[in-house]
């Protein structure tokens, strides 16, 4: 059924297909006439059956038959013969479907029609299972049949264990069966979730499954189906059964404000409001969660200055879940001497209601406590004073002074656990260790790309589990080996180079940001040598690392100034979490469109952005665009064509991507030179949509 080369049709075949096409056209026009006139006579229905026999993919005909069935069912009034006649009508439908499936057993419409008939509840499911057995014998990997099988078994309440056994048999028959492995993972998920007898504890089940799939992996490592299942098992083994949270401000931190009203010693502060000082409270969860509100996250603060907070998700998915939640805290400036110190305690999971995308309930309350010293009363407003240009030249960066370790960043590694017993992963660690050993054994037998990739994943999983258990020992970490494996894979498997580079980047960032010592190596103090005002902003400089992707975001929540220049970034996904970010350098990367900058839309405090020397405008087709809201979609909002900016319609068409990203940003400085798209028109465009822009490509505006 698979891997058959397509042959050019012979003359007779072409002739036959022409005859078929003519017949099909004739039937089709006849059928459409009936359909439009809502004719449901025997003759009309017979035409649709003939049509479907010729072309089972013609879903209009399937819909017509549904209408016809409904028509007859509603016309049935004689209650004595009701169920009999319904049954005979539906049996006829099943027959038509069966005939259609004989012609093409992968016709979506046909399978769907069958489901529709079955869900009426008049047909025998035993018959369906027998039919399925035939279909699955003809092609064991037919995913339509597998889908339908799940549907039928759910109707009849076939025990899950029985279906699991069925997948075992199918896999024994031929283990190269994605559908069977997939169904196995679906069924096991149910059994594990419900903790059915014999399927608990989870680790025992996983051990058995690893053993089962291992036979497939060793027998034929070139067959991917087993590896897919292995990956699912790995995910099951590593996935924590607790939620972890990191936050800004971090637990146990003390926030001070300078005379300028600036947070700590940073020149680039969060927004200031006239009534006091406002800064965000950010929670970053290990999984997307929902249900963050003022009752699930309780805030206690002396003097009751913080009332109902409004929590907002950042980059929420369709069901409203997000990794990142944010609320603004507002402190009054009373000018008391000495300044008051407020203690803020945030209790997460105080009342139930937080639930993650994988269904973990946050049931144990946990706390973040930090203090905020009252801002001085002689707070200078940010308005008015001259905005200096941020200059990323090397000479402006110096090694941080000792005391800057007291910055919020020192404690930013604290990971809050929402689990009573964090040390529950020994068994999982053992399982992964066994898998690592087998993987090495396989690689000893033969060189195998997917084996190497799996080994890299296993090693990372091992480290992750160890870190859950709180033993973050650098010595036992296998980062170096993992990086080596990905480097190998880049050479061995060029078609997937980008993926390996991404993984490499994630591992590298994880390693470099995993502890304070290595993190400090990347921290620099920013202060323009020539500037009279001594700025003391800490900049995280992750430049020249060849990274293609950003990761480890939960450790970067504190960052206000970030240098990612001279990397190979194509996307900046994840940066939306850095709500404190003021200055961002993306110079000399591989960003190829404005839409790649979409995460910036969420960064309201961003002031300075350098995207010079990228590839924006260099590619006519943006392959990422499907991820991006088009101007035609309703999601973008209806303020699109407002003449707020008096933008010409030509600009609109040319720069709509830029408009969606930059509209609403408060940039004061933008560097964009060295991109194919750059020209005078663009400069004009930006000066229109960014009213606060002072510096463009190094030149002062206005």
């Amino acid at each position, binding site marked *: 059924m698979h891997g058959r080369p397509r042959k050019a049709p012979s003359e007779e075949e072409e002739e036959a297909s022409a005859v078929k096409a003519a017949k099909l056209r004739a039937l089709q026009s006849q059928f459409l006439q009936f359909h439009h006139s809502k004719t449901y006579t025997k003759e009309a229905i017979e035409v649709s059956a003939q049509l479907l026999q010729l072309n089972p993919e013609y879903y209009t005909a399937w819909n017509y038959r549904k209408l016809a069935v409904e028509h007859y069912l509603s016309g049935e009034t004689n209650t004595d013969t009701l169920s009999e006649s319904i049954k005979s009508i539906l049996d006829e439908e099943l027959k038509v479907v069966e005939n259609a499936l004989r012609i093409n057993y992968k016709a979506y419409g046909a399978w769907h029609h069958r489901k529709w008939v079955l869900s009426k509840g008049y047909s025998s499911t035993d018959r369906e299972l027998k039919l399925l057995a035939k279909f699955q014998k003809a092609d064991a990997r037919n995913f339509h049949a597998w889908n339908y099988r799940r549907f039928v078994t759910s109707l009849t309440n076939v025990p899950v264990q029985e279906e699991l056994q069925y997948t075992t048999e199918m896999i024994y028959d031929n283990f190269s069966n994605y559908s069977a492995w997939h169904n196995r993972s679906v069924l096991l998920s149910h059994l594990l979730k419900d903790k059915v007898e014999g399927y608990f504890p989870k680790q025992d089940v996983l051990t058995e499954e690893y053993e089962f799939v291992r036979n497939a992996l*060793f027998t034929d490592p070139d067959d991917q189906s087993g590896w897919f299942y292995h990956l699912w098992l790995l995910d099951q083994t590593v996935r924590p059964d607790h939620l972890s949270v990191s936050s800004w401000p971090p637990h146990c931190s003390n926030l001070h404000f300078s005379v300028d009203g600036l947070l700590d010693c940073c020149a680039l502060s969060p927004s200031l409001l006239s009534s006091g000082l406002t800064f965000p409270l950010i929670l970053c969860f290990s999984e997307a969660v929902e249900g963050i509100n003022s009752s699930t996250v309780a805030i206690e603060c002396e003097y009751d200055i913080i009332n109902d907070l409004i929590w907002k998700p950042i980059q929420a998915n369709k069901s409203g879940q997000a990794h990142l939640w944010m609320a603004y805290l507002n402190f009054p400036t009373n000018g008391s001497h000495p300044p008051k110190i407020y203690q803020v305690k945030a209790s997460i999971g105080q009342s139930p209601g937080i639930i993650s995308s994988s269904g973990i309930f946050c049931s144990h309350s946990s706390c973040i406590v930090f203090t905020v010293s009252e801002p001085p009363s002689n707070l200078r407003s940010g308005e008015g004073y001259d905005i200096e240009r941020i200059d990323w030249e090397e000479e402006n960066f110096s090694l941080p002074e000792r005391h800057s370790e007291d910055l919020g960043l020192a404690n930013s590694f604290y990971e809050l656990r929402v689990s009573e017993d964090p040390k529950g992963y020994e068994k999982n660690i053992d399982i992964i260790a066994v898998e690592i050993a087998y993987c090495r054994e396989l690689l000893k037998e033969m060189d195998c790309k997917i084996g190497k990739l799996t080994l890299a994943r296993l090693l990372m999983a091992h480290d992750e589990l160890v870190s859950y258990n709180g033993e973050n020992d650098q010595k036992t970490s296998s980062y170096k080996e993992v990086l080596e494996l990905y480097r190998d894979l880049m050479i061995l498997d060029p078609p997937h180079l980008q993926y390996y580079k991404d993984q490499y980047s994630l591992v590298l960032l994880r390693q470099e940001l995993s502890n304070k010592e290595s993190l400090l190596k990347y921290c620099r103090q920013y202060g323009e040598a020539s500037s009279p005002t001594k700025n003391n902003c800490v900049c995280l400089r992750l430049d020249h690392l060849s990274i293609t992707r950003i990761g480890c975001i939960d450790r970067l929540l504190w960052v206000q100034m970030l240098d990612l220049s001279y990397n190979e970034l194509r996307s900046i996904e994840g940066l939306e979490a850095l709500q404190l970010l003021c200055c961002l350098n993306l110079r000399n990367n591989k960003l190829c469109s404005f839409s790649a900058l979409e995460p910036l839309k969420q960064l309201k405090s961003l002031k300075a952005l350098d995207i010079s020397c990228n590839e924006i405008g260099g590619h006519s087709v943006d392959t990422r665009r499907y991820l991006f809201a088009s101007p035609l979609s309703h999601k973008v909002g209806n303020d699109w064509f407002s003449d707020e900016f008096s933008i010409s319609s030509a600009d609109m068409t040319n720069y709509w991507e830029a408009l969606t990203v930059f509209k609403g940003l408060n940039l004061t400085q933008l560097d964009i030179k060295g991109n194919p798209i750059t020209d005078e028109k663009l400069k004009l465009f930006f000066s229109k949509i960014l009213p606060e822009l002072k510096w463009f490509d190094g030149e002062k505006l206005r």
Partner: protein
Amino acid sequence: MEDTASYPTIEPSNFDLIVVGTGLPESILAAAASAAGKSVLHIDSNPYYGSHFASLNLQEFTTFLQSQSQSPNSTPAEIQPDSSSEFETVPLATRPMYSSVEIISNSPEDPKVLFCADEMMNLIVKTDIHQYMGAFQSIDGSYVFDGSNGCLRNVPDSRSAIFKDKSLSLAEKNQLMRFFKLVQGHFQSDGGEESKRISEKDLESPFVEFLSQKIGLSEKLKSIILYAIAMADYDQENKEVCKVVLKTKEGIDRLILYHSSIGRFPDAPGAMIYPIYGQGVLLESFCRRAAVKGCTYVLRMPVVGLLVHKDDTSYKGVKLASGQELFGHQLILAPSFILSPGLAHSSPGMQGVKVKVTRGICITKNPLKPEVANCLVFYPPQSLCPDQLTSVRVLQLSSNVKSSPSGMACKLVTRGAALPCPQTQPLPHTLPQRNNQTKATYIPHYPIFSGKFGFGFCSLPQLKEINSESEIN
């Protein structure tokens, strides 16, 4: 000799071809010749079809054995020379019994199973012969005896079998599957990609060396491939006693045959099948096909001699036990006949019998594997005892192939005769007891000429096995 009066007279007395003996090769030739429009006479001295290929019932079989063992060499009847005739009658003797010709293509001494993709099956499919015969039963499993543990293990002969196997280590699974893929690659790249082909030099080397040196397989895997899949007879590791060294080329060919057999027919999951009612139905089907095409059949008709021309001793016809003389352009004799040395074209395979085979038939109440109806079991050399120099093969047939009474299993035991003393050879506990050894396949005879006819006959198969020879002590 029976009274000549009881023999019928055969009309006409001239044929294009006279075939004596109704063994499988003779039957195929008779069918082919008839289909080609030749007039053919096919005769056999026995009251049944098949000569040594026949499937006999128990009674017939014991009679057969007794009759043969009483007269190890049939002395040709004295024929009075008839000076008036222009022909001379050369008496025809038969060979001692237990000479038999096998049909399996790669290993003549095997239990009589068919590979789904072998020449015989190709012929059966190509000629539609199967319309005259019953169905086939699949051989559900093959097992290899693990001498160190004294138990039977599944032969990991396919991808799914390797996957399911419980006794191989993971590394062995990997090695074995890679080797199978190598063989497959060699087969598929035939004439194409050179890189996937096994080198000519390697193909000429002994298979056992290729497996251990080039492929680096473990002893266990080597033994499985050599004796349970490639079905080598002699201990390939022991050069002194190994009479037939399997070359890599042959070994690979056997593996390819084995693998292309798996899954050829949807109802036979394994590589091998066995015809229901025994293999005798094969030749009977060919005879039926021949009869449809006009071949004349006469059973219970011994041939006493060949008619040769007095002058140049060229063959002219045969003289029957009835005394009737029949003439034909060509003659095919079953290999069990001995031609007097004076006649030319005597089959070369008759002489120089190198290989002896020991066979045993057991009818037992207990199957080797309770859950499996029909199976093959292999005992590699030295697995039973240190001086076992050849492999022993057992074919278990159950009542679903109608060869043993229901509830009983029938086993055909075959092994090379190089065993020092077959009679006292201890058998492993897993083998059935040998008290019923002389019992044979139990086959109800059924009418031969029935069914639908028509269709032409196609080309002849390669019948290189026709002269191969084996003897039974």
